[in-house]
């Protein structure tokens, strides 16, 4: 059963050819992405023309973004901080809210996934609360917590926990019947079952849930900070819009989007690593 794979090396291997190939490979990877970006910029330019100058052009936005990024961490008092500081503030809130959310969602999801009765009990409650907007939760959070930053975090927690909850439930519910049977036949203790069967089996679903939750948390932060004021990218958007500075709004959108993308990629990467690990790759 030894796998002897005959690898046929490509013919040439002289240095310049190798570098050329390498550059070509990079180009082949990047050029579709660049093409995509160009298409986006083109559409945007058209939209700017249609708007008759209200919507800033990609170039104008790029210049604003460059200015914003040239000194991202300046701090001129509480109402005038660099975009880097705003980003940090938002990230802090997003991670806090998301972290609390998953800390609630994963154990609760494990319970729900294991008990059909619990699922029946809580499904309607979950389905009713899930579509509620962060903007509706904020005033309630404020009423209970008496603290605006906590209320923002509360709004993030309660709008972002659902995907993790639903996915954990699903992941636990869908653990293959024969793995459950194995743990019964071999008399696994509750703890052994949770650590060796339940969690690893549900892990991909949980990770996907966490990733979706992060997406929502990141989407909610703007709304939350807009309502609560103070700091963060959300407030930056709000403030820039108040000043009708759409280049700054666009810049903030790009920063939000790219950060969101980076977070998402991080999760993908973790997921791939875990999958590779499960298959014994690394």
């Amino acid at each position, binding site marked *: 059963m030894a796998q002897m794979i005959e690898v046929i090396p490509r013919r040439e291997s002289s240095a310049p050819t190798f570098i050329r190939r390498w550059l070509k490979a990079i180009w082949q990877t990047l050029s579709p992405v660049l093409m995509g970006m160009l298409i986006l910029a083109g559409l945007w330019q058209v939209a700017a023309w249609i708007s008759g100058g209200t919507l800033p052009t990609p170039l104008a936005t790029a210049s604003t973004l460059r200015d914003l990024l040239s000194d991202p961490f300046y701090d001129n008092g509480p109402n005038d901080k660099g975009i880097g500081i705003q980003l940090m503030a938002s990230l802090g809130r997003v991670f806090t809210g998301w972290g609390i959310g998953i800390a609630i969602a994963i154990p609760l999801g494990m319970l729900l996934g294991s008990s059909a009765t619990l699922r029946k009990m809580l499904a309607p409650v979950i389905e009713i609360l899930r579509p509620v907007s962060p903007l509706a939760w904020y005033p309630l959070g404020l009423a209970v917590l008496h603290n605006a930053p906590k209320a923002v975090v509360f709004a993030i927690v309660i709008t972002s926990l659902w995907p993790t909850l639903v996915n954990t439930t699903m992941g636990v519910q869908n653990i293959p019947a*024969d793995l459950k*049977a*194995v743990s019964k036949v*071999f008399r696994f203790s509750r703890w052994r079952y949770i650590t060796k069967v339940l969690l*690893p089996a549900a892990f991909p679903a949980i990770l996907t849930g966490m990733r979706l939750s992060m997406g929502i948390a990141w989407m909610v932060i703007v709304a939350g900070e807009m309502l609560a004021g103070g700091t963060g990218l959300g407030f930056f958007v709000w403030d820039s819009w108040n000043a009708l500075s759409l280049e700054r709004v666009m810049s903030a959108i790009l920063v939000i989007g790219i950060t969101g993308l980076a977070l998402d990629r991080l999760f993908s990467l973790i997921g791939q690593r875990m999958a590779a690990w499960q298959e014994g790759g690394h």
Partner: protein
Amino acid sequence: MAPRLLPRTTPNTAILPMEPAPLLEISSVGKNYPSGQGQINILHDIDLTIQSGEFISFIGHSGCGKSTLLNMIAGLTSISTGTMLFDGKSIAAPSPERAMVFQHYSLLPWLSVYQNVYEAVDSVQTEMSKAERKALTNDVLARVGLSNHIHKKPMQLSGGMRQRVAIARAFAVHPRMLLLDEPFGALDALTRGSLQEELLGLWSGDARTETVVMVTHDIDEAIYLSDRIVVFSDGPGATIKEVITVDLPRPRDKQSLMNSPTWNNLRTHLLLSLHC
């Protein structure tokens, strides 16, 4: 290939009618599943007594309830009617005494070959020391010829190697009865053949696991391995159609058996029995 620990001296022969305490006693067992307002009957009037030391096969058309009966013996599925006694006691829950090997291996894919076996050993062999458990794990894996693969993940193994791990895991908990649900069904004919040999080797080499109950679709496999073959009628609402005794001496040699008249008679009988 795998070292025989306790060579079985007397070959397993057919039923010993008057043997005092049967290992498993199934009386008037039936199984219904709820459906709409009523219930669907899957199995009814199952009577079967299995003696310690027997190798029993279940054969029958798809959906007749072979897996259901095996799962009831395992304690994974409840019985609807009748009684099922293992070693004189009613079967209430799964137990390592009746270890199971599933068609799709049921290994934990995130654990290595070693860990897959070790977790079961660690969970069941509570009276052993840690060193003993480790030794046992390595020993059973050696007996299925996987010593060089113990750090691999199941995904890195072929189907046959995976099923060897599952069989090793089952033997490692020293069950009194080994239950196998189409253990070789997903393997190609060639791998299948060598695993049949290995199963026989393990079974006859281990005095602790004397009794085997196996579900199969393959007539040749059933004849080659079994002391008795339990033939099911067609489902749903199936029962036992007949129990055929395989009167061939052990150890059996496949190549020569295939030309023996007993073999051919059994084969023809089973084919006819299953075809109508």
